[in-house]
């Protein structure tokens, strides 16, 4: 098996490594780049925990190989908070609304939502539409009521 050199822009930083082609992007992010905010749940694309942004679009990092991200830009949950530690408005709203308990699923939710917030005025969406947006993510602690509430709160603040 031939090893490959990959070079990925990860949260604005260039990360290079020599990898097996079968290395999943999720494992590259966690083990090679040392960013453990991206969580691996089901590892077959169903749970949504490993969702990251590939050139701005939310994708499952467990269904991509690291070699496929060569030359591309990846954003993970670590990119959301400011350098001084101030939380992103979405993170702040999740925190205040008790939209997480164990927090395992949260990074995936946040990376999907951050992309939606860039394109959509979330305050104009019905609850049903917000739930559809979140349908690709499983939460097994809190249920979804508080997550929908957090989306509403963040939407109002980010619009203001």
């Amino acid at each position, binding site marked *: 098996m031939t090893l490959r050199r990959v070079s990925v822009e990860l949260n604005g930083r260039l990360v290079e490594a020599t990898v097996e082609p079968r290395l999943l992007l999720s494992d590259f992010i966690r083990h090679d780049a040392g960013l453990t905010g991206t969580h691996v749940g089901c590892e077959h*694309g169903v749970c949504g925990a490993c969702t990251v942004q590939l050139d701005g*679009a939310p994708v499952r990092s467990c269904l991509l190989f690291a070699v*496929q991200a060569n030359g591309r830009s990846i954003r993970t949950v670590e990119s959301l908070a400011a350098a001084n530690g101030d939380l992103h408005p979405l993170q702040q709203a999740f925190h205040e609304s008790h939209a997480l308990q164990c927090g395992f699923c949260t990074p995936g939710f946040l990376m999907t939502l951050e992309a939606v917030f860039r394109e959509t005025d979330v305050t104009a969406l019905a609850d049903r539409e917000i739930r559809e947006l979140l349908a*690709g993510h499983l939460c097994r602690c809190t249920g979804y009521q508080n997550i929908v509430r957090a989306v509403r709160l963040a939407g109002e603040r980010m619009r203001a």
Partner: protein
Amino acid sequence: MKPPPFEYDDPRRLDEALALLAEHGAEAKVLAGGQSLVPLLNFRLARPRRLIDVNGLGELDYLRFENGTLRIGALTRQAALERSSETAQRVPLLTRAVRFVGHPQIRNRGTVGGSVAHADPAAELPAALSALDARYRLRTRSGERVVASEELFLAARTTALAPDELLVEVEVDVPGPATGSAFVEFSRRYGGAALAGAAVLVTLDGSGACERARIGLLAAGPTPVRAREAEVWLRGATIDAATAAEAGARAAAGVTPPGDIHGSSDYRRALVETMVTRALLEAVARA
């Protein structure tokens, strides 16, 4: 789990990909969006010796309308199809169907060609394309052929693609005037696998009767199927609650869906009847 080891090629041009397929096709799998293949690799249900990654073939990523035909490059992302306003206007059945494919994160990566080549009987796009009488362009290093749904889909997750062939394009004729369409499906959870579904096009004649109905079914058998008997029966009929229900019953009588833990064969057949009835009434209201 982690995928088994494989050799990996990432050609940048179609001719390179076809040359690789000519040399290694029998032991290789084509990797497009990977939303079905990579789970199979992670579970080690598939262990190909080699992956030929076609994501570098930008020349296969396009949606083009030419003389009443929509040409979809095989590498077109499902999300691009979903966002195409011209498709929503001219072939809205595809826009309706693609919204049921997985979730947005899956559609950002999954491709139209991959959905066709994977040939999952519960998949939305193959059933919608079957209803649209789509043609599939298959290319090898030495030639090309164009096949219809009935020729392409052989069995569950099995197509007529030869080991050295690559699906490069899907062609759909834009439906004519006075045509309405609908896509309905039933699943346990939003975004989950369909237990039954129907993709329907209805064209009305000058008097408002059905000139032509096309009914594609998903999850009703090993491949996407057309409910031909119901289509013929609807010709000349006025589609209302009674005739739509009769056509639904005829469509259901013609299929034997496989039963499993999520629903018995009888239950799924009953769903087919309901899905077809609903889809016909929705489609005729838009015609």
